[in-house]
């Protein structure tokens, strides 16, 4: 015993590459860690492996041609990014959207949010060593993908929204299947809580780990569930209600400590709230047009600019579009939530253990190609 208490023989700082191919980095992310033993002194995320130049592409494509690009940034919440881009262009060019289309979009967007959170739930628990919940979560998520596939034609990179509506109407089949899915998902939560939330190993790996303070969140521009876990009740859907979110009754779940466990709890509760929104939207959905036929085929917004923010699965997504009056955007900047959520790790990882870094990285829920754009 006394032997172990002696000073370590080797007293030096060494560097370790976490990634770019590591099961827990979810996308191609390399974190260059400077370590003192097991403790992290400095973490430097190295990104850009998935850079495709969406902003440049935006300037070289018409507004409509850029629509499929939008869902390829954050491929896990493509519908939400798609929705945000459609809303931004509609605001810039003053296109009206029929009521039914608004409901269809909102339902699909919330379904996509649940599927993104389910995937995060499964992979995060798998990062921490629990394989079974992953399979349960993917079973549920598969149903969402099937439903969204039936209306939009794709399972991941949706391009369902159009300026002035959606590309295809939904039938009673969609409504029935969505209702059945929501009912099924709500009945699964007790299982999830029994399997994971109450699991003592899980609690020890997450409680008090990777605390993001409110000040850090503000400094690094952290948004979404990560921000709400720190106790700040801020959700774009409530703060500046877009589309029809002001018509629904839902809560914004918040945490108190800002640790990994709070982030977990916030996301799980958000899925329940999304279910509430979907149920209300299905009840209220009117009959009518799903697309504004009078909207111009080739959109030419008047000169000017717009910044439009939506709440995507990972936080605030902002489209900043500048129009010079032509069919091509003069500038198409996208503010992505994972950018700040990953950047904050440079501060949060300091002084933590390597094993905790895996847990923290997972709990932040970053999608790297979204940052790379």
């Amino acid at each position, binding site marked *: 015993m006394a032997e172990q208490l002696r000073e370590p023989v080797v007293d030096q700082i060494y560097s370790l590459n976490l990634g770019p191919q590591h099961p827990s980095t979810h996308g191609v992310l390399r974190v260059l860690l400077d370590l003192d033993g097991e403790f992290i002194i400095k973490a430097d995320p190295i990104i850009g492996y998935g850079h495709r130049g969406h902003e440049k592409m935006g300037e070289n494509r018409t507004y409509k041609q850029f629509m499929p690009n939008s869902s390829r940034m954050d491929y896990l919440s493509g519908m939400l990014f798609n929705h945000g881009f459609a809303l931004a262009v509609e605001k810039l060019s003053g296109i009206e959207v029929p009521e039914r289309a608004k409901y269809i979009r909102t339902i699909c967007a919330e379904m996509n949010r649940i599927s993104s959170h389910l995937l995060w739930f499964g992979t995060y628990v798998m990062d921490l060593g629990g394989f079974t919940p992953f399979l349960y979560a993917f079973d549920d998520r598969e149903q969402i993908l099937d439903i969204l596939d039936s209306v939009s034609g794709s399972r991941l990179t949706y391009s369902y929204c159009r300026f002035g509506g959606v590309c295809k109407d939904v039938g009673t089949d969609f409504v029935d299947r969505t209702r059945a899915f929501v009912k099924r998902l709500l009945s699964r939560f007790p299982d999830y809580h029994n399997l994971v939330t109450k699991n003592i190993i899980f609690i020890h790996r997450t409680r008090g780990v990777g605390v993001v303070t409110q000040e850090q969140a503000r400094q690094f521009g952290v948004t979404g569930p990560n921000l709400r876990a720190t106790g700040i009740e801020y959700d774009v859907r409530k*703060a500046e209600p877009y589309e029809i979110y002001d018509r629904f009754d839902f809560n914004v779940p918040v945490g108190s400590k800002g640790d990994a466990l709070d982030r977990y709890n916030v996301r799980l509760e958000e899925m329940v709230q999304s279910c509430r929104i979907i149920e209300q939207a299905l009840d209220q959905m009117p009959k009518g047009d799903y697309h504004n036929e009078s909207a111009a085929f080739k959109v030419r917004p008047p000169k000017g600019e*717009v910044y439009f923010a939506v709440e995507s699965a990972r936080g605030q997504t902002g489209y900043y579009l500048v129009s010079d009056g032509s069919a091509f955007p*003069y500038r198409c900047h996208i503010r992505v939530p994972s950018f700040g959520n990953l950047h904050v790790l440079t501060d949060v990882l300091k002084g933590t253990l390597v094993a905790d870094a895996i847990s923290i990285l997972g709990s932040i829920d970053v999608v790297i190609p979204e940052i790379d754009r």
Partner: protein
Amino acid sequence: MAKKDDILQKLREMLAEDAIRMDEAYKAGVAFSAQVPLDKVRDVAAAFKDGGFYLESVTVLDFQDTVELVYHMNAHEPKSRVSFRALCGHDQPAPTVSDIFATAEWQEREIHEFFGNPFTGNTDLRRLLLPEDADYYPLKKTFGKVHAYVKREEIYG
């Protein structure tokens, strides 16, 4: 009083009479937009920090005659996004705000690699998304295929 009203009052004291453009209908998604001279960017950013705002996004617009930095600020309150913008010459160094808002460290790195705009005071301007040895600035309007390269007044005139 909402944070955006506080900051509006403060900016009115700091800036020229006609610098602030109100936008009650949020047509551009912001409550108001302030035109700031380049040498006051840091003072304005510090005022926003004291006012409880966070930096949502920094970006650059490339025009024939000038480059414009656009800062979007937001507070964790309903409908409180505001923006301020500063004109800057091509390749003219802009003051960094990375010591005021940590998120600017990376956002300025991104601007630097895509537009070539240097930032004085930001010590870490390595490439963020592009390869380390990239010697081109892809989002400049002089790079690759572009559909329009106009003077600023043609859009905002």
